[in-house]
């Protein structure tokens, strides 16, 4: 029991340098574990972008591409899904529900998505959470629009505001003859829904009745009121979300869609494709882990340097310990124990910083970046990391401890300072 007490008192007597060293270790540990948390949180949030949807169907292209444009609103569809095909799929007995997605227009930088009102019930994220209205109601009238939280926040939209949809994604031609009314604002989800303007599928059709090939048909102006009398069944949609009656039927339905003879289609399992996509961008994640591991290594090397620099002035202490009967090994053990204590305190403080930070900034991170960080007990992997930090500290401390061992052997009782 003597050694821990000595090590502790020795550390206390140098509390400023020791404190700074511990602080450096704790920051590095907090950073490392924080990166871990954000990494797993980001991955989980990413995987949570869409849930409870069994299949996504679109024109045949790459699975990742289909996922990107249908869920993340990134990129464009190369082709559409005809309304006939959509109806055929909807008629399948395996299909419990199907929600169309029609993309192509934009509003001041945000994508406009035409869909059915059922979308607001069927779209789930973060393991089954549904969409909620922060304000107002779902679209009811043909020219109603529901906007995501980011859209409302960035453009300052409230309910009953008039907005105009632009044709295409980066165009100056607007459907200004048929303005929409914001009927509701969605609560924040941390998913691409926040950056989307939702209108009904019929509305998409309605604003395009007098358009052909991306331009107005000259002399054929259909007014906003006239269009209400028209048949507004779409000719095609961009993609569709599908829920099956039983999970067992997912693969059968997927095969049926992929083999659909009338039109080349592609059905994907969103979870699987999300994983593929994450694997693509996961390289950055590895780099992040690498960098934070280097920070931990730097902090530990700093500790070794601090022990080294203290050795000269502690030669006297070593001589005293030797004189009262301490073995050279005792001195080595003392120095390593000090390093271990510092590392352990650093790890504990780092954990405190991490969890304190999580508690303090979790809401803000979710709101700002859509990354939902769960506060859970340290995972096995994190415990491993902490154990590894201690082992690394021990290993690193062996260099100065060994030097002290050598010094205590050669100095004996006569100290040449």
């Amino acid at each position, binding site marked *: 029991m*003597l050694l821990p007490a000595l090590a502790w*008192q020795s550390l206390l007597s140098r509390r400023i340098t020791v404190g700074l060293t511990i602080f450096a270790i704790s920051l590095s540990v907090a950073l490392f574990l924080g990166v871990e948390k954000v990494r797993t949180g980001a991955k989980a949030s990413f995987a949570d972008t869409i849930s409870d949807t069994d299949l996504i169907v679109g024109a045949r292209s790459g699975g990742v591409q289909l996922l990107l444009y249908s869920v993340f609103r990134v990129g464009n569809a190369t082709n559409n899904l005809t309304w006939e095909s959509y109806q055929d799929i909807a008629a399948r007995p395996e299909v419990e529900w199907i929600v169309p997605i029609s993309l192509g227009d934009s509003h001041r930088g945000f994508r406009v998505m035409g869909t059915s009102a059922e979308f607001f019930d069927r779209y789930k994220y973060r393991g089954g959470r549904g969409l909620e209205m922060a304000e107002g109601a779902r679209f009811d009238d043909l020219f109603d629009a529901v906007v995501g939280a980011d859209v409302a926040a960035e453009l300052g939209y409230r309910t009953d505001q008039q907005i105009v949809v632009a044709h295409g994604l980066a165009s100056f031609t607007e459907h200004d003859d048929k303005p929409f009314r914001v009927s509701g604002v969605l609560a924040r989800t941390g998913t691409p829904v926040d950056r989307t303007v939702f209108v009904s599928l019929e509305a998409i059709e309605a604003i395009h009745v007098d358009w052909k090939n991306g331009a107005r048909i000259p002399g054929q102006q259909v007014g906003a009121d006239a269009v209400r009398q028209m048949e507004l069944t779409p000719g095609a949609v961009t993609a569709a979300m599908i829920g099956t009656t039983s999970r067992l039927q997912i693969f059968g339905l997927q095969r049926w869609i992929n083999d659909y003879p009338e039109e080349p289609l592609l059905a994907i399992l969103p979870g699987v494709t999300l994983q593929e996509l994450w694997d693509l961008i996961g390289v950055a994640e590895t780099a992040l882990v690498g960098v934070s591991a280097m920070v931990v290594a730097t902090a530990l090397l700093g500790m070794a340097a601090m022990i080294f620099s203290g050795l000269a002035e502690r030669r006297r202490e070593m001589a005293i310990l*030797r004189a009262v*009967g301490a073995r050279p*090994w005792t001195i080595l053990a003392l120095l390593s124990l000090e390093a271990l204590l510092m590392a352990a305190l650093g790890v504990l403080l780092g954990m405190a910083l991490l969890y304190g930070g999580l508690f303090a900034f979790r809401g803000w991170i979710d709101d700002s970046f859509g990354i939902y960080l769960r506060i859970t007990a340290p995972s096995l992997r994190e415990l491993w990391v902490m154990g590894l930090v201690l082992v690394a500290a021990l290993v690193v401390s062996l260099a100065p401890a060994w030097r002290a061992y050598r010094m205590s052997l050669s100095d*004996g009782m006569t100290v040449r300072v």
Partner: protein
Amino acid sequence: MAQPDMTRIEAAGGRPEAIRLETLRFAWPGRTSFRLEVPEFRVGRGEKVFLLGESGTGKSTLLSLICGINAPDRGSVMVDGTALADLSAPARDRFRAERIGVIFQMFNLLPYASPLENILLPLSFAPDRRRRVTDPRAEALRLTGALGLQDDLVTGARAAELSIGQQQRVAAARALIGAPALIVADEPTSALDTARQGAFLDLLMTQAEAQGATLLMVSHDARLSGRFDRVLDLSEIAMTTRGAG
């Protein structure tokens, strides 16, 4: 734990001598060309010996050899009837902890520990010495009391906060606790002013006598030699050679 070698004790004439050096030769490895030779040096049990020597004449080296911190290149060191060469390095460390109390010139104490903790330090390396003390804390305070230190100073402060004179007395108490056979003092008074030197020595000697300990003190100051049983000049027992450079 090393047991005293009985054959050697008999050879020495019944009771073992406290210190016996024979045909000793030692050179610091690699560092300097300094070399120390001691043909013969004996200190009887319970004797108080004053070894006079200027600094740099090998006093500390001699003490390191007697304490078993360094091993001689040739010759033998026997302390309290035990040949140190027969002991392994860990056993020598243990032997030192059990049998020898050391007082340095200054900076005797671990600055971050309390004086009391400093005094109890050797006991944790020496179980036999620990057993001789029923209540270590009370014994430490008894010794410091006898050496003229107040209890709260010993238990409360950190060692670094004491004056040099107080520190030396704490060091004396540490050397004495558990009644080791041999007290080795390396210029214990040179950091004190003249008026306090005599008083410190008196206290040290009284306590050593009370415990029946052998006292070996080295100093460059001949004025302190008055109360010792035997006064020797280091040059009488040891030859030191120093090469060029």
